[in-house]
């Protein structure tokens, strides 16, 4: 037992020495979380604003101009172009000059006064023209997010257009937004980013670990020594646990100070959840390392794991919205479980014990993976 610890210690010291000589990798440890946090936290924004749109104004009245101003006041769109015909507008959409076009008909004022939202009461349904919409949107529907944002304008109130007091209907539901009342994307993204960056760096580091020893010929020497495969595996992942903790500190620290991500949960809870996820990711990397024949192959397999970890884990899109088979795949990824844990702890101050399923899953994954890696890595050569 004592000699076993000594052997693990030998591997750990060796890994740290090698890492300290590898300036590039050492720099990446700091730079990857730093750059990606700044990039994603600023860039990823699910609230669409300032979509460039055009207008075809057949009416050319002051009312049509006021209508344009009211629409652009929502902030969702910006009128960048004006076209004289619907045909020209459609061509502009084809060439991606604008994403949508507002077509204001010549009889816009008549349509407007008869519009129910203006407040002259409901017109008799027999008169078809009275219930016609005021104007029409022509939208490039290929991007569902943009199309959705413009569809949201369908029922915008028009009362203030006619200098009438806003006719606020009593909403069907009252909505109270917990945890992120201002609806800032960054609050949801920063904790999720912890999972994505750890998945990337942790799997990448260890997936190359065993392969590198093989490629450089060191494995031939190691297998002749009393070093057991489990000792090698543990020694290999140990130094990277600290690197993972450094990266988490960078992401959450910057998220807190730079982006005002609320930090509701306890640090100890966060540390436990993060440690579990780091171990699970490192072990996943080790398993890859025992399968891959070269560092290039191990890199390809890392990407193979990384992409679903970004797209299916709930980092980008809500887990609940995915079809069932995709949910099963997501369920198999450590990142999915960790994103639930970290969002729970950081944003909602949930005790991790209340999310014991995700915790147990990560523990089970780590133990199983370590066993698979140790068994796959054969001590004998045949």
């Amino acid at each position: 037992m004592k000699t076993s610890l000594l052997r693990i210690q030998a591997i750990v010291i060796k890994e740290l020495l090698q890492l300290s000589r590898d300036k590039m990798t050492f720099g990446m440890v700091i730079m990857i979380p730093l750059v990606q946090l700044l990039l994603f936290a600023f860039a990823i924004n699910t609230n669409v604003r300032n979509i460039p749109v055009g207008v075809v104004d057949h009416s050319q009245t002051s009312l049509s101009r006021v209508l344009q101003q009211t629409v652009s006041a929502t902030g969702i769109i910006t009128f960048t172009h004006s076209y004289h015909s619907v045909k020209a507008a459609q061509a502009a959409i084809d060439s991606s000059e604008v994403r949508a076009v507002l077509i204001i008909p010549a009889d816009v004022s008549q349509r407007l006064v008869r519009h129910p939202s203006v407040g002259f009461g409901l017109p008799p349904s027999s008169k078809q023209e009275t219930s016609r919409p005021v104007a029409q949107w022509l939208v490039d529907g290929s991007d569902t997010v943009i199309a959705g944002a413009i569809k949201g304008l369908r029922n915008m109130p028009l009362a203030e257009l006619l200098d009438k007091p806003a006719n606020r209907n009593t909403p069907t539901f009252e909505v109270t937004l917990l945890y992120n009342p201002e609806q800032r994307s960054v609050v949801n993204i920063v904790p999720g980013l912890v999972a994505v960056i750890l998945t990337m760096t942790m799997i990448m580091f260890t997936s190359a670990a065993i392969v590198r020893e093989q490629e450089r010929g060191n494995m031939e020497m190691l297998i002749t020594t009393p070093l057991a495969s489990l000792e090698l595996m543990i020694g290999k992942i140990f130094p990277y646990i600290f690197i993972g903790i450094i990266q988490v500190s960078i992401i959450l620290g910057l998220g807190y100070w730079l982006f005002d991500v609320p930090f509701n949960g306890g640090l100890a809870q966060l540390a436990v959840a993060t440690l579990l996820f780091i171990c699970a990711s490192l072990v996943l990397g080790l398993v890859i390392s025992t399968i891959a024949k070269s560092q290039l192959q191990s890199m390809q397999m890392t990407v193979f794991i990384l992409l679903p970890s970004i797209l299916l884990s709930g980092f980008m899109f809500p887990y609940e919205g995915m079809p069932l088979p995709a949910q099963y795949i997501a369920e198999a990824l450590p990142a999915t479980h960790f994103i639930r844990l970290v969002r729970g702890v950081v944003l909602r101050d949930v005790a991790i014990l209340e999310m014991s399923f995700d915790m147990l899953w990560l523990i089970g994954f780590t133990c199983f993976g370590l066993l698979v890696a140790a068994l796959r890595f054969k001590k004998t050569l045949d």
Partner: protein
Amino acid sequence: MSTSDSNSNNDKFAINAEKLSKDFGALTAVSALDLQVEKQTIYGFLGPNGSGKTTAIRLLTGLLKPTSGQVNVLGCHLPQEANKLRLKIGYMTQKFSLYDDLTVKENLQFISRIYGLTANEQKARLSELLSTHQLTQQSKQLAGSMSGGQKQRLALAAAVIHRPKLLFLDEPTSAVDPQNRREFWEQLFDLCDQGTTILVSTHYMDEAERCHKLAILENGIKRADDSPQALMNNMAAQVVEVAANNLRHIKDNLIKLPQVISAAQLGTHLRVLVSKNESQPIALLQQQPCLKLTDKLAIVRPSLEDVFVSCTGQGVV
């Protein structure tokens, strides 16, 4: 074989293998190898590339499981007791397999921790090894930046750090110059003198000649084994040296004779191996029309290369 017999054998021999075979699919890398290596000797494996030297060493170190046969190394039955054996043996790989991005000292510290040396033992052993293997000045140098000879000394130092009773060297001198090779062998004899048994594989004749005992391997089969001197004395051929002009032409004619095993040119001479069954080798060759009466023929002392050629049946070199 009775128990007492095998026990006394195990006392006498560091390695005792019977009918050891290893197949890789259809290929038989080592075939029915019988091997007995006495303690405190240097034993050589001589053979061309692909003759099964490395596979044989890996079988004897417990890295590979034999397809059939019995092996006992230092009293450990393989492959069952391979883990126990690992603490008692040292293994120097064919290619430099320590870490290029660690210094000499860091490499040795790493290996000594792997073998469970305590901090005090480690310090004393390391300074001893560094001075024995003339690496004290390089102790802070990265292993990757050292010359072939220095790397080889480091590899040897690492292989003996835990004072193994048995040392395996797989083509240890393939990357070093003759001067370094000489010094390297001096180290090996020192180790042997201190009680270490050494098994070394090589394809250099001069190196093989230094071994106490030698096994000649070809296609996984042991063709001969004995001391180099005995091998040369008991060779199944006699060596006739021919001094003449037009040696290429003479060679082409002589090797057609059934009694001639091989003929190889060495500068101005032709070395002809004639079967031992031929009682008058000089007379036989002299009769050949391609030789003139003025050409000088003489029976000379066989070299290890002659033994190798006559054993391995490669025929014409």
